[in-house]
């Protein structure tokens, strides 16, 4: 056995001991450093490091919610959602196919010996080819019927020359998708039920296409059936201007995700929808709901790997409008029957509102559009079609027109309030009236002779209004118009965005309203005010500009004996009947009675007698104003009023823009629309209140 000392394991000299101690401390320091580092990393920095690690290996995908429904006052669903079936390709599952195709194309390229090989281009082509093959298979299934298969009639391969665009995978779309949303499935067919944009197919055909894919396409594979919710407008064009439409957005509604915790995580999102017009836009925050989210781990190539957690989106709240679908339908149907000599629908608007609450029962404008065709994919053709026809404009609240003879109601009130005329005063009204060296004509060349207030309203005498208007003067006349709110935009944006309980409708404000006076004419550089300007204003012509909604409010205010009506489109059964800024009309009982009697006589024996409804008395004032279209004079047909005459419940206004070759008159053209709206309202009103003898009198 060897002596242990011979091994020299332990230091025997002082130097060796010192060396050992030195080595010991060097190693100890090293270990302490490593241990301390570990401690710091594992304990103190663990949270931050985990966050960093998560942010690199996880991602959040936000999913848009279904929007809330929009109902009419009786609960009918005016705007709903429908499921949209789409076909999507899972790109991560297609990787092996992409690789195989890439190798095949690369080999072919090498065989051609064309010099430098563009590998990126080959990769794009490989992806495109694979996806195109799958898209062809999808179309093969949704298009193929047994009969066609038997006859070998189904095109199997698409090609860029002959195939319609929806059958082709577009390389730019694919590149964009891979660049921005690689983790999300790539959409091959965006709407299975309506696969071809701008082509009308029956609902049954659409359902068959979905059913064929569901039952025939292999379930296990990279091609998936996906569903999301999109907007649908069950009544098509009905109330389109009120309801508006939706458009794509990348700004999704808020979600329930703890943003602080997940701030560092990469976020992707599906395309959402937001309101682009009408109620859809103005009540977007209420309708939009809460986005859902999915937390995924991701692969190094950027595809999704495993779903860790998810939260479903929450549907938005519903909105109940004050519209009554039956009255709205009647208004739109009647408007659609007003056509020019070439059979083209004339631009027009109709409004009916509740006299007491100001709730709008019908608000129609034509030409219009079908929001269903804007809800998903808007084609340039359809967009241009609406643009050309002027269909975007909501004429009922945005159209600015001279009110014509319907303004004579205001002139009469101004005359009585300014003591220029009383209810029983009679004025001599000839065929014209001379103002400032110019003859202002009566619309009946024979004149009306002796005319009092009632007769003026019944026959719409111009000369009476010239005299009264000039007697009142422009400033008091303008003040009276302003007292009725003709210079105040209606349905404005709520004062604050947080005030979600507002009942106002933030449609684009009807700016550009004009109640002219001397200052206005000077301001626009049209020179000093003249008597002729006052005469024109007194009959609702000249510089005056207003909207059909304003005139409907004037009718409602007169029906209540007040000056202002605050219209609203939101239904509230407990609504306070007080109207903002409203005051008494300022006439005595006899004056008010005469005013109302004149409006009744307008229907019974005057300019609106052609639309009289036997058994249902209503009050109205017609108007036929002039405006210039393409430098030539055309007519605007107006009618305002309320029903019933004795117990006013609804007020209305109809406007029709006459064309150059169309003779358009208030009673004859606009009257039938008002009558149809009144009949639709009467049908829904308790029999004890209203009892028309004939429901649908011949025109």
């Amino acid at each position: 056995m060897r002596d242990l000392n011979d091994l020299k394991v332990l230091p025997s000299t002082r130097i060796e001991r010192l060396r050992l101690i030195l080595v010991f401390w060097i190693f100890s320091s090293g270990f302490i450093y490593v241990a301390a580092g570990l401690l710091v990393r594992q304990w103190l920095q663990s949270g931050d490091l985990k966050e960093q690690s998560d942010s690199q290996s996880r991602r959040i995908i936000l999913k848009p919610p279904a929007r809330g429904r929009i109902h009419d006052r009786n609960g009918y669903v005016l705007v709903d959602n429908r499921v949209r079936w789409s076909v999507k390709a899972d790109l991560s599952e297609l990787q092996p196919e992409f690789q195989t195709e890439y190798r095949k194309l690369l080999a072919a390229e090498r065989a051609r010996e064309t010099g430098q090989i563009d590998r990126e281009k080959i990769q794009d082509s490989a992806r495109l080819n694979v996806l195109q093959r799958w898209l062809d298979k999808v179309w093969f299934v949704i298009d193929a019927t047994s009969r066609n298969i038997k006859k070998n009639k189904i095109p199997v391969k698409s090609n860029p020359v002959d195939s319609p665009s929806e059958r082709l995978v577009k390389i730019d779309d694919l590149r964009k998708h891979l660049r921005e949303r690689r983790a999300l499935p790539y959409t091959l067919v965006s709407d299975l039920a309506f696969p071809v944009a701008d082509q009308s197919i029956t609902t049954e055909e659409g359902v068959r296409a979905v059913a064929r894919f569901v039952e025939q396409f292999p379930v296990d594979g990279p091609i998936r059936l996906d569903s999301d919710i999109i907007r649908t407008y069950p009544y098509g064009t009905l109330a389109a201007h009120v309801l508006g439409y939706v458009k794509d957005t990348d700004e999704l509604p808020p979600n329930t995700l703890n943003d602080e915790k997940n701030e560092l995580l990469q976020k992707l999102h599906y395309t959402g929808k937001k309101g682009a017009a009408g109620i859809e836009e103005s009540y977007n925050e209420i309708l939009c709901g809460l986005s859902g989210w999915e937390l995924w781990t991701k692969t190094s190539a950027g595809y999704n790997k495993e779903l860790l957690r998810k939260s479903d989106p929450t549907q938005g709240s519903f909105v109940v409008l004050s519209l009554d679908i039956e009255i709205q339908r009647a208004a739109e149907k009647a408007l659609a029957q007003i056509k020019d000599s070439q059979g083209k629908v004339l631009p027009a608007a109709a409004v009916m509102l509740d006299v007491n609450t100001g709730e709008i029962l019908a608000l129609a404008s034509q030409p219009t559009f079908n929001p269903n065709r804007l809800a998903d994919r808007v084609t340039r053709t359809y967009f241009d079609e609406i643009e050309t026809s002027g269909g975007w404009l909501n004429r009922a609240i945005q159209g600015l027109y001279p009110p014509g003879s319907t303004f004579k109601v205001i002139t009469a009130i101004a005359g009585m309030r300014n003591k220029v005329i009383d209810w029983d005063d009679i004025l001599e009204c000839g065929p014209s009236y001379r103002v400032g060296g110019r003859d202002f004509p009566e619309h009946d060349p024979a004149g009306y002779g002796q005319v009092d207030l009632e007769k003026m309203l019944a026959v719409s005498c111009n000369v009476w209004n010239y005299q009264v208007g000039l007697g009142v003067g422009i400033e008091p006349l303008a003040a009276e118009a302003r007292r009725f709110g003709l210079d105040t935009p209606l349905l404005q944006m709520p004062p604050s965005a947080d005030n979600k309980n507002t009942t106002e409708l933030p449609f684009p404000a009807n700016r550009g309203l004009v109640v002219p006076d001397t200052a206005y004419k000077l301001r626009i550089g049209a020179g000093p005010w003249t008597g002729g300007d006052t005469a024109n204003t007194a009959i609702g012509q000249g510089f005056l500009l207003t909207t059909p909604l304003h005139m409907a409010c004037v009718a409602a205010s007169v029906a209540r004996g007040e000056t202002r009506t605050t219209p609203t489109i939101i239904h509230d059964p407990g609504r306070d009947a007080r109207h903002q800024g409203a005051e008494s009309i300022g006439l005595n009982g006899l004056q008010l009675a005469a005013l109302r009697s004149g409006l009744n006589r307008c229907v019974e024996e005057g300019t609106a007698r052609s639309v009289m409804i036997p058994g249902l008395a209503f009050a109205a004032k017609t108007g036929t104003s002039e405006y210039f279209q393409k430098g030539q004079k055309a007519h605007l047909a107006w009618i305002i009023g309320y029903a019933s005459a004795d117990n006013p419940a609804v007020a209305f206004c109809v406007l029709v823009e006459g064309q150059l070759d169309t003779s358009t008159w208030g009673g004859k053209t606009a009257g039938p629309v008002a009558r149809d709206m009144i009949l639709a309202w009467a049908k829904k009103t308790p029999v004890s209140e209203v009892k028309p003898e004939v429901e649908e009198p011949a025109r």
Partner: protein
Amino acid sequence: MDKNRQGAKASYVAFFVFVALWILAPSFVRMGTREAFVEFQAPALHLVAKGRDLARFWELKSKSSEELAAASRDLARINAALELKVRTLEDIRQENIRLRELARYTAPREFLTIVARVASRDSSSWWHRIILRKGRSDGIRPGCPVVFSDRVIGKVSLVHLNTCEVDLVTSPNFRCTAYLEGDEQGRIVLVSGLPANSLGTARAKIAVIPTDYVAPAGQSAKVVTTGMGGVFPAGLTIGTLDSNIRTTQEGNFKEGTLQPSRNLFSLQEVSVLVPIHPAAGEILLEKRYEDFQ
């Protein structure tokens, strides 16, 4: 001892070589091997199923004459009722023919019916798949609907020479469109099988049920095929809708659970409906798609 070690080494080497060959083998070799294995297994399946039938036969044969007499009496009654039904159906058929002649309508017969005995359940997916004792040689093709009486059982997914595999309605690989009893507007819903483990319960989901759908009072609503997808004839019962229908969080639709027919779990015989003209899906499944045009 060295010899033993060498033997052990050789077996390891052989194993790894086999695994490597299997991995490197082209897909057609692997598919061929699998197919050969299935065909090799088929006689055993046939044998087991026939043995089961034989056991059933002997079980019935061991019944007493009183029991057989009672069963025979019951059967006679059922026969009488069925005969009446057959006559009624014959009347309807004749009327149908008469009307078709009047309208000069010649509807093609869309399906051939092949009756097949169930050989076994696929043990790897107990609730999802059954194996039938008929296959390609009997004219069965992939994608064919499989029914029992007027109930949907599933769809043929794989066809071998003498057997075929059927995805049951509870299989995640099964999906079809359906109508719900009581929905007068005839809106389609989506039926799809759900994954379940061997000890779990077979389930299928019914999705996209309209929110205003109300099931008939006091009974489970029948779920029937639409006939729109080109696979299943219209009006076959898939099952019933569980009473527990819930609205999805998104709020636009409801979803519920499908209660499949009890027969699904005690199947002995089914009918395979072979379409006369192949559907597009069948062409995709058979991988004949590329050669189609």
